[in-house]
């Protein structure tokens, strides 16, 4: 499986000024063989009340399709500035997307949720494909998505 490795110097709301207060995190998303074209994935974080906090990664570079990532799109109003610099190619069926980034310590064990919205051309839109609480205990535990994600895990 081809994997995408990206080390991010995050410029979103999720970064904190000092990297000492952040820890590297590896996000691994493996898709099922759903039999369609490459999937668009939006990886983002919401707070305890469900409000949007910031984006981690956007797989898929044509902004005209972002409206199909409907939860992310509603939360951000489709603002591409939210994913500026953290956008990559869409992920093919059966492929794995691996991202490494530095995430602020304060986001862990504080009621934040890591979410993935997914969409594939001519197939169903899948907002809320994955929703996992960001906890230190949950790291390394793979979860399954609703429609396209075979497994998702974050490792510290």
């Amino acid at each position, binding site marked *: 499986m081809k994997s995408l490795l990206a080390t991010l110097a995050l410029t979103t709301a999720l970064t904190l000024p000092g990297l000492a207060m952040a820890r590297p995190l590896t996000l691994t998303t493996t898709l099922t063989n759903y*039999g*369609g*074209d490459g999937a668009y994935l939006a990886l983002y974080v919401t707070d305890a009340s*469900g409000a949007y906090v910031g984006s981690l990664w956007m797989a898929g*570079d*044509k*902004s*005209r399709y972002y*409206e199909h990532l*409907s*939860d992310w*799109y*509603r939360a951000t*109003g*489709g603002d591409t500035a939210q994913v500026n610099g953290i956008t990559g*190619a869409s992920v093919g069926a059966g492929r794995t997307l691996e991202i490494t980034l530095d995430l602020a310590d304060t986001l862990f064990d504080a009621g934040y949720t890591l979410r993935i919205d997914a969409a594939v051309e*001519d*197939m*169903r*839109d*899948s*907002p*809320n494909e994955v929703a996992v609480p960001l906890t230190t205990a949950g790291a390394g535990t793979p979860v399954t998505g*609703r*429609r396209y994600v075979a497994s998702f895990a974050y490792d510290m």
Partner: protein
Amino acid sequence: MIRALHRWPGLVALALVTVLSLSGAALSVFPGAERIAAPQAEAGMTVATLVDRILSAYPGVEQIRRAPSGRITAYWFDQGAPGAAVINPATGQGAASADPNQTQRWLTNLHRSLFLGDGGRIAMAVGAAAMLVLALSGVLLVTRRAGGWRHWFARLRGPLAGRLHVEIARIAVVGLVLSSTTALWMTASTFDLLPVGGVPAMPVEVSGETGFAPVLMPLLVATPVAELRELSFPYPGDATDVFTLKTDRGTGYLDQGTGALLAWTDLGGWERASETIYMLHTGQGAATLGLVLGLMVLGVPAMGVTGVVVWLAGRRGRPRIRGNQPAGRAETILLVGTEGGTTWGFAATLHSALTQAGQSVHTAPMSAFAPDRYAAANRIVVLAATYGDGAAPASAKGFLDRLAAADHAPDAPLAVLGFGDRSFPAFCAFAKAVAAAAQAKGWPQFMTIGTIDRQSPQDFARWGRALGDAMGVDLELSHQPVLPLVKTLILVSRHDYGAEVQAPTAILRFALPRATLWQRLVGAGFARFDAGDLIGIMPDGSPVPRLYSLASARRDGFIEIVVKKHPGGLASSQLTALEPGQTVTAFLRRNPGFRPGRGRAPLILIGAGTGIGPLAGFVRGNARQRPVHLFFGMRHPDSDFFYGEDLRAWQDEGRLTRLVTAVSRGTKPHYVQDALRGDAAQVAQLIRDGARVMVCGGRDMAAGVADALAEILAPTGLTPAVLKTQGRYVEDVY
């Protein structure tokens, strides 16, 4: 210029446009198939009813989509497992799998990106742009060649490849322009180069309640299924979420607790345009149009092959003009009007002599005449052959129209040189027409019109010296005409006549030489000929070929001519002395002006002596039993009744309707024109009914026939001249 714009994108992008068109044609089938396969909603059904039915079958439904084909797909979750199906709107139940068709997906990815992502998309867009350039330049070329828009569907002449190319193109060009333009728009849209309309902002305030039945929501009740695009349900358990409805008119949000419309945005102009363009390109929502476009683009590979053949044939037929200057910078403009291409050789010689004399020269076909572009020209020289009875030859099509349409004559003065054959009455007629048109337009001529008889190098050298004098340079033109490709023909049989009337004549039949595949494709040499075409015999001891009319077509399987021995005639003596097995060197020259043409209109064939040759060929080829009336003049039936037995057999087979003979030797000389007069009533009737008259033979006979026909036609108000302009009276005279 336009030709180059047509040629180079065509050759460079050939593979790309072939892939585009084949995959596009294959894809064009899917919208129609989907339309037929998809269960359609009954007329007038509302979205509320549809939603109600689907909800009772799939309570966990999340989204309902309707494709332009009318296919309705529902997506749901049932106990955490995702499900999707094509819905039968009558029941709300699933009717078929909603999975994308893998073949269609593969073809789509090939068609839009060659499986290469954005790079592939750009490559395919370049292909579409090439297609557009080809289509537009092709339209200009066809218009120019046909001589104007009104002749768009005019009958075509020339080798098969070129005819096929234009024949397909003039139908398919509509589809190609439409498909390539829409493709470019769609690519621009994909790469965010076009503005996009936004989705309405999420309403801030919602009722916070849940559970209002969609079947009662006023907007869903008011919206017919035919307008539905997409309906997304609120996320279960999230009271702040809403129903999202997309229709042909716009997008709106509906409160899940009250059913009220919270916000609505109409589709913007750009989105509407983009959707129309998407429909025109894909046929999604216009399946029939899609199929028609698919059929049209199927012509692209055929045009690719024929286009390459035409290009290669053109390269062979025309000598390379070395150092051709751009039209805008040349001091001397050479314009060439030629049918078969021989005049190009003269043009090349003149071009190189002028270039050596320090001139900058631009040489182009007369059909490319563009006076506005000749900014630096001091003079314009026209080298013009004549086609048929004074018509413009192929490479001069449209010249006179364009000259007539110009605001004023070019500033640079003109010299006209005509090429022709003095044995024809219309010697250099087209060149004279050009000179006359120039005079009428007030275009000054710096030399009187020159003429070249039968490609004479002496005539050409003489004219060249006159041109040099006029220009003040030394001009020595030494041109050796390039002979057409000659073949060795083997005599297989001969039939002798006329010895008793002191006119020894032979019908000579030669075996068909073998044609290469290339010659068959481009119709070169003896690969394609019809009765009435000409064969040039190269006699021993003379470089000048002698032309004879063919009495057979390629499909007859042999080459046949009728030759009368002239006292002292070099070629006729050699030919009439040939024995079977012996050979002669010859080439083929087309004579498209002397053809019976298609259709069922009666033919009146009139000939005397050896002039029977092509006429007999027409009768022999008349398998479709078109009415043919043959008037044949001879000296004596016992001596020179050429094809006598054949004609009787052809009459029995229905290939010949009537044979009228005229005998000139004897107590009461009777010529073919007398036979026509004797039959005046019927001849006049046939011509009134649309008959076509074809005359072949000596000049005196032809003149006599024309006089006789003028008399016969006088009561009808028609004249041979009128018939000639209608193309219904043609002559092959020697």
